[in-house]
């Protein structure tokens, strides 16, 4: 079970530094989530010749806080036919798993502060990549349980779609990453970043894998054009139809944090992580993260939603074979060259 031990033993870092880093990182991620919603609305607004939110605070910068206050102050209503324990558990499960996964993503080279060695990640797990996918799969239970327990046809259909879509695209997502794993010869994200720092960014040899990762990731986080799980026009809101107040807020939060984590993963696996000239590591990480997030927002504004059969065909007949071929070709080239 040594691979489960959180915190790198080799760095000799006291446990309380890991704790402080975890608190800082989780708060930064939550802050990032809050302002990602604002930036998304702003960017989408500008792309549609609107201003986006600009009333609360200067240029609307306090809008996320206003949203949060509104959600918290709302009544936590409860459908009469819902299964209470699961109904309440759903959003918590989703939010918990979403926030957990960011811990293994490295965001800096590590520093020595006051005689203590501080690493640029919360936890260096040797199988970090597997951990992320495993916890991500657990997170799907949050959506399924929530949709099923609220006893509503829209929620049930939404959670069924979520389930089918996430399971389908998870295969392509995992396979698209396989090329990177083969090239770096490690499942640890810290090692993968280090390998990219020594070599080249894997986006160049793994351009196909990067494309598949972004597309499958869009589907995995249920964003447009793959936002069928919560297609407003047909399903009201999908699995969180019956949720309101901060429980809905938790679902929304878990979706956005999943998106941030996925973008962080894309940066880590393909864009060299925190490596970059002149600027310090975390700054480069945030810049790359912002670029990937912008691409997701851009995609949401531009592309219309797919039909359900198109979604399944694209996932199983295009992305999965491509990802498989990519992984096999990478393996052959790595062995022979």
């Amino acid at each position, binding site marked *: 079970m040594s691979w489960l031990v959180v915190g790198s033993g080799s760095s000799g870092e006291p446990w309380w530094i890991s704790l402080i880093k975890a608190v800082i990182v989780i708060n930064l991620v939550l802050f990032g989530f809050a302002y990602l919603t604002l930036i998304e609305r702003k*960017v989408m*607004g*500008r*792309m*549609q*010749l*609107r*201003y986006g939110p600009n009333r609360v605070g200067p240029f609307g910068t306090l809008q996320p806080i206003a949203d949060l206050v509104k959600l918290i102050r709302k009544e936590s209503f409860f459908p009469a036919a819902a299964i209470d324990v699961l109904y309440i558990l759903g959003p918590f499960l989703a939010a918990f798993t979403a926030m957990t996964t960011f811990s293994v993503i490295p965001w800096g080279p590590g520093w020595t502060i006051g005689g203590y060695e501080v690493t640029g990640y919360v936890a260096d797990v040797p199988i970090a990549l597997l951990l992320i996918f495993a916890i991500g799969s657990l997170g799907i239970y949050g959506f399924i349980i929530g949709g099923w327990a609220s006893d509503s046809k829209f929620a049930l259909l939404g959670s069924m779609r979520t389930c089918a879509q996430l399971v389908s695209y998870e295969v392509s997502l995992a396979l698209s990453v396989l090329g990177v794993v083969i090239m770096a010869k490690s499942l640890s994200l810290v090692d993968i970043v280090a390998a990219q720092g020594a070599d080249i960014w894997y986006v160049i040899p793994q351009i196909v894998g990067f494309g598949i990762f972004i597309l499958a990731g869009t589907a995995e986080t249920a964003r447009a054009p793959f936002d069928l799980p919560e297609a407003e026009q047909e399903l009201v809101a999908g699995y969180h139809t019956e949720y309101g107040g901060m429980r809905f807020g938790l679902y929304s939060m878990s979706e956005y944090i999943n998106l941030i984590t996925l973008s962080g993963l894309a940066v880590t696996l393909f864009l060299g992580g925190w490596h970059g000239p002149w600027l310090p590591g975390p700054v480069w990480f945030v810049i790359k993260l912002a670029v990937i997030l912008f691409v997701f927002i*851009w*995609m949401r*504004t*531009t*592309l219309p939603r797919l039909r359900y059969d198109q979604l399944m065909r694209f996932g199983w007949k295009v992305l999965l074979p491509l990802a498989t071929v990519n992984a096999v070709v990478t393996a052959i080239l790595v062995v022979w060259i």
Partner: protein
Amino acid sequence: MQPFGTLKGFGVTFKHIFKQPITQQYPEYKRPVYPRFRGRHRLHKHANGLEKCVGCSLCAAACPSDCIRVVAAENTPEHRVSAGERYARIYEINLSRCIFCGYCELACPFDAITLGNEFELSEYSRDDLIYTKDMLLAEPIKRIPVQDADLYDTPIPAYKSSS
């Protein structure tokens, strides 16, 4: 051509970030209403200060949503309010029911009631939406920008004077 079409779409959305939004920021900028726009009612007076309304209740009869209440009283030499025989002792319009159709304006034989341009009629209480005679007779406080009458008013000369 499918991927190229999609890429072109990405180009279009990206280009629009740098364009000026066309949103009209409402509370700061009020879009000018058209000259014949039907807003809140106004009651009028003659030049000598007497009210034009004679309390005939034709407006109340014409009102399809039944939101006008008129109670008439006799003018006396000591207490003369309107030019006619009677005057409106109570004249109330319930603006939460009014549909701004303008039939009261058409029904009025003395042009005593017209529909003005004010459209910001929100209140915190429903009771505040019942406009009494004093409120309807008073000059409106808010200034509503109106479009250029020469450009946007009716082209029919006969209607122009009464709009």
